């Protein structure tokens, strides 16, 4: 049973930050080849700024109505409640698949080519069901341990590549055009999904401050910048020819004769995806049915599994499910939807939010 005690917003935003950072682990290298490092940084800043803008409708709703979008919709008439629930359920299923597919692909291609990806998915989703049934609070508590592990992995990954760094005069050049800008910015928009998760779960947190999402996105930006920096100046052109550049970064890391940092990368990616899918399943539970969470979680896990199996055998389905444009549009709508709550909703009397802002 989930623990219903209101929990710290710092921990919630930490979990969201980890979710945003884990995107970096699973992203394929789709940045423009012609752009320079500084240009990529500018694109990253623009991308993360848009991510922050996605937070604003949820923040306004919280401030003005004192509730998250899902809680507000449950108090609305059925003709509003049902479409909102269906939309968010679809969104979270899509998002879960959007991260699950590259993870299993990466796992299957880099680690265990002999194992069926469907088997990996079944085991992973089984574990996610257990976590999601325990509730958001417990998943965010898990986030603290994941944070420590992520710190260790990052230290090993970046520290192990320090000796390979080669900085040249061209490091500070500015190169790129408008087409590159959009291509790169789209790459950095993926973490925006955390704004939607925030919009759906923020009624359960206490002591929220505006600086918390700013910090979460700032540290996500730092992680992005560090990864880009090391990929460009330590791994170099080799990384651009490879899938999953962060994986390459972990593989090239070494301390004298000691290597094998990719095992830490594997562990971090696994636990991150586990946390993201668990969080998304928690969101689905909130969207559909707050009371019977076990039944809802199992039902949506089966839907996830079915969709994954279809994508494994039908390439066009996989294309749709991993299309970044569809994901960004979907995320944009999901992030903007709380604005409608400002027009329709009434001020909440939820006690957890009285002292929150």
């Amino acid at each position, binding site marked *: 049973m989930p623990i219903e005690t209101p929990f710290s917003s710092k*921990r919630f935003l930490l979990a969201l930050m980890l979710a945003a950072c884990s995107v970096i682990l699973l992203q394929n290298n789709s940045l423009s080849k012609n752009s320079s490092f500084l240009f990529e940084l500018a694109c990253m800043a623009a991308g993360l700024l848009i991510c922050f803008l996605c937070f604003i409708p949820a923040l306004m709703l919280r401030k003005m109505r004192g509730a998250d979008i899902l809680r507000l919709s449950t108090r609305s008439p059925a003709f509003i409640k049902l479409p909102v629930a269906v939309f968010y359920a679809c969104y979270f299923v899509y998002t879960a698949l959007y991260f699950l597919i590259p993870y299993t692909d990466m796992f299957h291609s880099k680690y265990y080519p002999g194992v069926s990806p469907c088997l990996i998915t079944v085991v992973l989703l089984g574990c996610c069901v257990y976590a999601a049934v325990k509730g958001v609070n417990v998943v965010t508590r*898990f986030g603290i341990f994941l944070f420590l592990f992520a710190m260790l992995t990052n230290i090993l990954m970046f520290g192990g590549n320090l000796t390979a760094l080669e900085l040249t005069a061209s490091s500070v050049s500015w190169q790129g055009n408008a087409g590159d800008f959009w291509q790169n910015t789209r790459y950095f928009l993926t973490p925006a999904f955390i704004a939607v998760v925030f919009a759906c779960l923020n009624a359960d947190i206490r002591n929220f401050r505006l600086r918390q999402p700013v910090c979460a996105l700032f540290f996500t930006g730092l992680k992005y910048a560090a990864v880009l920096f090391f990929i460009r100046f330590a791994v170099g052109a080799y990384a651009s020819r490879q899938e999953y550049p962060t994986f390459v970064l972990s593989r090239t890391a070494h301390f004298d004769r*000691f290597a094998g940092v990719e095992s830490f990368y594997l562990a971090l990616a696994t636990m991150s995806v586990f946390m993201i899918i668990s969080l998304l399943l928690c969101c689905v539970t909130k969207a559909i049915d707050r009371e019977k969470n076990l039944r809802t979680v199992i039902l949506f896990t089966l839907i996830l599994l079915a969709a994954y199996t279809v994508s494994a055998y039908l390439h066009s389905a996989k294309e749709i499910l991993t299309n970044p444009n569809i994901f960004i549009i979907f995320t944009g709508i999901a992030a903007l939807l709380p604005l409608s709550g400002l027009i329709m909703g009434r001020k909440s009397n939820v006690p957890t939010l009285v002292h929150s802002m």
Partner: protein
Amino acid sequence: MRCPVRFIRGIITEKRSKLSLVILLKNSVKEIKLNLHTRFADSADLTIREITLKSTSGLTAAVITMEGLVDKEQLAQSVLNPLMVYDFGSMPPQKAAETIQNAVAAAADLLTFTTVDELVTYITSGFAVLVVDGAEIMLAAGTQGYAFRSVSEPESEVVQRGSREGFSEPLRVNMSLLRRRMKSPELVFEQLTVGSESQTQLMLCYIQSKVSGQLLETLRSRLNECRLETVLGAGYLSDYLEDKNTSRLFSGVGISERPDTVCGKLTEGRIAIIVDGTPAVLIVPRLFVEEFQGVDDYSNRTYYATFIRLLKYLSFFIAVFLPGLYVALAQFHPEYIPSFILIKTAEALSQTPLPVTMEVLMMTLVYEIMKEAGLRIPKSLAHAVSIVGALVIGESAVTAGIISSSTLMVVATAAICSYVTASLYPPIMALRLVFIVVGGLAGLWGIVLATAVVIISLCSKTSLGVPYMSSLSPFSLRRMRDVFLRVSWKALGKHTIRVQKFPETEVDHAH
């Protein structure tokens, strides 16, 4: 220490409230004798001595005791001798009983009562009951005297510095050990009875000003839910004290045999449960980080205590993960093992007939069997068994090529590390086996996922409403000074710890 008279009176009062039918006596010695023989089925230890008092009206009385529970010398001096000598003249039975209570009996504790149920409780508690034929009241004299183990150092919690006293079996001795250390009137002992047949007495012990009222109420209600017929040890109650719907892998109930440890916990707002007949005292709520704290930590230098504590955490991780990681790396990811170790490990493993997972699993099970045998065999045989274990299973199995030396080293290291935090041995053992199997089936990926599930399980666990992983997750920076580190007493003394004030605790803070 609470007066034994009040102590027994407490039991009686509680029992009265529970009894739906109270049998009123006519206090005929003959009837009582018949009643008791029927109740105790002519048990050999029921002793009823009938005596004729010195009186003109021919008063008779009976002294009822249970063999072995009374101090016969004390009984003779404080009850029988004065009774035989005193001249009751022509007193009626009721007046004689009152005179015995007020002027004759020399016992320090003397109680009056009226029912057979009370009589049974008194005699089974070591009291001598005096029944004057025809009187309305009966008298219970406190003449308890039974053999019990003296206060000695607990073998399971040995310390380098600090007290050598440990709890013993009698309830009142244990209460006195606590009261001697905690002279505050705020220290309260609250009595309950559990076990419909055994009628085991237990004491809830807490500091009135520090405990949470809601915590106390929750604990009482859980103990009242206990429907066991017999409670012969503290462990019988553990399951009733655990929170519902939380993992049972790690225990949310602490156990200690040391009065100083229990006193320390009481000052943090915890509640101790002393069960009669067992030296193990239960403490609730129990948190994960407490498993790594020891009495010696607070006596040693700060830097050394911190070092030892970090060693304990490291040992815990080695004990749980080492065999599983070894299996996963050897079977699925040998490329992650440094080459100079890999060569030797691969060479050793190639000479053994079993797969590495089976090898490690088998050795772990053999070790568990040897451990159980070692705990139970007589001391005179222990030396021989240890030689058999070390030479036959260790040396010979490696020489014969049945197991590899690296496997033996991994299993032995994990086994030794598991005793650094001895209270966590059951979950360590269970998790170790799980990780060996998971590592053998799914490699590092399986271990990572299993670890995630275990962490989720730990994070969702609560002990009487307090998150089991408190201080770590939910994180509390202020409480970190006594988690991985042990800061100086000056710094520790600045803030008081109340268990009900831990973040996200589901109990009220008031007492």
